[in-house]
């Protein structure tokens, strides 16, 4: 599944050249090809080289996800402090940068309590079911032309379907805790997740319709060519807003954090959890936030694209686009751009959390079903009409 076959590459290049009028698209750094070539040069069979390659990107992305969470927790603490005119953590490392490590270690050493009347098996399985789909979804996040774990054909659809497993884990945790607040929190989480998945999927569908592919790499490639002007946010402003609101609701971030509303439900489905099991929920929610931000960057903000077309800049320097040094520099720029865009969105999410009050459950469901869903449908219809009317701008 991880291999990007030659046929797929050919079709991919064909679609990109069809979608962009700017001509040459940078082929990008292909670490897998270089790595397997190196190992085969040492006398290993292609199968063994591939087997040795497989765990590397997975481990790398897992580490990246966890480090992303640590950064996120630090940002949350610092930005919330700035919003409330406090200083925030400052003693653990420079600017309190080690505070998330301290938080994590504290959770690691805490006693792992399973309540006496709780259902032990489901209680343990719940947090796992919440975390695993979120981490699996990182499979399709691209940081460059070949810099992703797997360019699966179903791409973004895989993320939508995996994110629908999460409510089962929440329901499981809520039920197994044997606590009415937990159960209510789990039910609210499931209701919220089901409601907001539909406008989310419709917003994604409009983007997919423009790029003629579900693959995340194709979606980004369709946004290259004219730098910042060719990003999807100009063609899908409504879709961008819908997607961002729904992503926040799916992450249970503050305007929509009803499942764990402190004033109403103690802590929702997390009430009975402590120690590492609570840490899994915590980790899951933050990984999900970073993942959603990355996917907004991929779908609407040009993914790894630089605001000026990289090909154009490379052309100015007179270097060939596939020179090794140029490839390394463009790939690094791509990774930095993706992460930068994602963390800009994370910053907005954190700022929203500390400035906006929580909605009520009926307002939440009204917003989802009576406002976002019709708007998303109209957006889809308009996109289809524009695609037929102006195929050059909205993907042929």
């Amino acid at each position, binding site marked *: 599944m991880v291999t990007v076959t030659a046929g*797929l590459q050919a079709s991919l290049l064909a679609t990109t050249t069809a979608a962009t009028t700017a001509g040459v698209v940078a082929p990008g750094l292909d670490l897998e090809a270089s790595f397997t070539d190196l190992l085969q040069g040492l006398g290993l069979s292609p*199968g063994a080289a591939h*087997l040795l390659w497989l765990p590397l990107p997975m481990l790398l992305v897992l580490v990246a996800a966890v480090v992303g969470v640590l950064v996120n927790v630090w940002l949350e603490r610092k930005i919330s402090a700035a919003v409330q005119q406090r200083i925030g953590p400052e003693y653990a490392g420079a600017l309190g940068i080690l505070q998330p490590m301290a938080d994590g270690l504290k959770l690691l050493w805490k006693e792992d309590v399973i309540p006496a009347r709780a259902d032990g098996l*489901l209680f343990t399985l719940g947090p796992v079911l919440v975390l695993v789909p979120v981490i699996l979804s990182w499979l399709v996040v691209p940081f460059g032309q070949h810099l992703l774990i797997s360019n*699966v*054909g*179903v791409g973004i*659809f*895989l993320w*939508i*379907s*995996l994110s*629908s*497993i999460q*409510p*089962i884990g929440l*329901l*499981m945790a*809520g*039920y197994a805790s044997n606590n*009415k607040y937990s*159960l209510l929190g*789990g*039910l609210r989480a*499931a*209701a919220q*997740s*089901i409601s907001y*998945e539909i406008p989310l999927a419709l917003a994604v569908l409009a983007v997919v319709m423009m790029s003629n592919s*579900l*693959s995340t790499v194709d979606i980004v490639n369709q946004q290259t060519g004219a730098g910042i002007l060719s990003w999807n946010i100009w063609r899908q402003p409504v879709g961008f807003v819908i997607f961002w609101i729904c992503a926040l609701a799916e992450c249970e971030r503050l305007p929509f954090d009803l499942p764990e509303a402190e004033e109403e439900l103690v802590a929702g489905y997390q009430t009975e959890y402590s120690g590492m099991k609570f840490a899994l929920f915590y980790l899951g929610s933050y990984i999900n936030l970073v993942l959603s931000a990355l996917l907004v960057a991929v779908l609407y903000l040009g993914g790894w694209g630089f605001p000026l077309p990289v090909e154009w800049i490379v052309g100015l320097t007179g270097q060939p686009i596939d020179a090794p040094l140029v490839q390394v520099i463009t790939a690094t720029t791509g990774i930095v751009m993706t992460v930068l865009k994602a963390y800009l969105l994370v910053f907005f999410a954190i700022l929203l959390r500390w400035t906006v009050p929580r909605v009520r459950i009926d307002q939440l469901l009204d917003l989802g079903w009576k406002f976002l869903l019709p708007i998303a449908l109209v957006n889809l219809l308009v996109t289809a009409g524009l695609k037929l009317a102006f195929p050059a701008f909205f993907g042929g």
Partner: protein
Amino acid sequence: MTIASSTQFICFIALSAAVAIGALGVVLLPNIVYSAFLLGGVFLSVAGLYLLLNASFVAAAQVLVYVGAVNVLILFAIMLVNKKENLAAIPGLALRRVLSGAVCAGLFALLLRVAFSTPWATPGPEPLGDEATIRIGEHLFSDYLLPFELASVLLLMAMIGAIVLARRDVFTTDIATGEPADQGLIEKSRTPLLLENSGPANAGLEAPLLETNP
């Protein structure tokens, strides 16, 4: 046997075992919540089998529709009405179990016979891989258009039914029985939060609290 094919074989064995054991658990476990969660596991394992058959779009759709929608709704329904009560014993339970077991064994034997007597073409046609999405779309809007539209009409009917059930207040009489419909849920006034006279009204306020807190 190469690494890829042996991995595939091991995955197939594991997924098939998960489907079979999970399905037995769904039917045989007495706790309905466990059954519902196991059903989710069975759906996921079936999605894994689709993935092994190179049908990644069908696998993703299976997870989205069956796990994400159907199973979550089942769990939702169970948990909204989850009340611990001991059901009255059904008379002749043993006989019923034997009978349903016999019917299931008969069906299983029939399926086994069909499976072994059908001349399966092995290996099957070449899997389409990622182009399957395009092919499914083409079929849905050409030769499978009528079933596709009928399915959407079915969903519309289900939706109208749900609205009729949920909005009983529109009708003054119950559609099924012809009796006056109970509109208590909608028109019942709320118990005031702050009571002015601290007499017998307080006792009325405390009673429901005691009930919910055994």
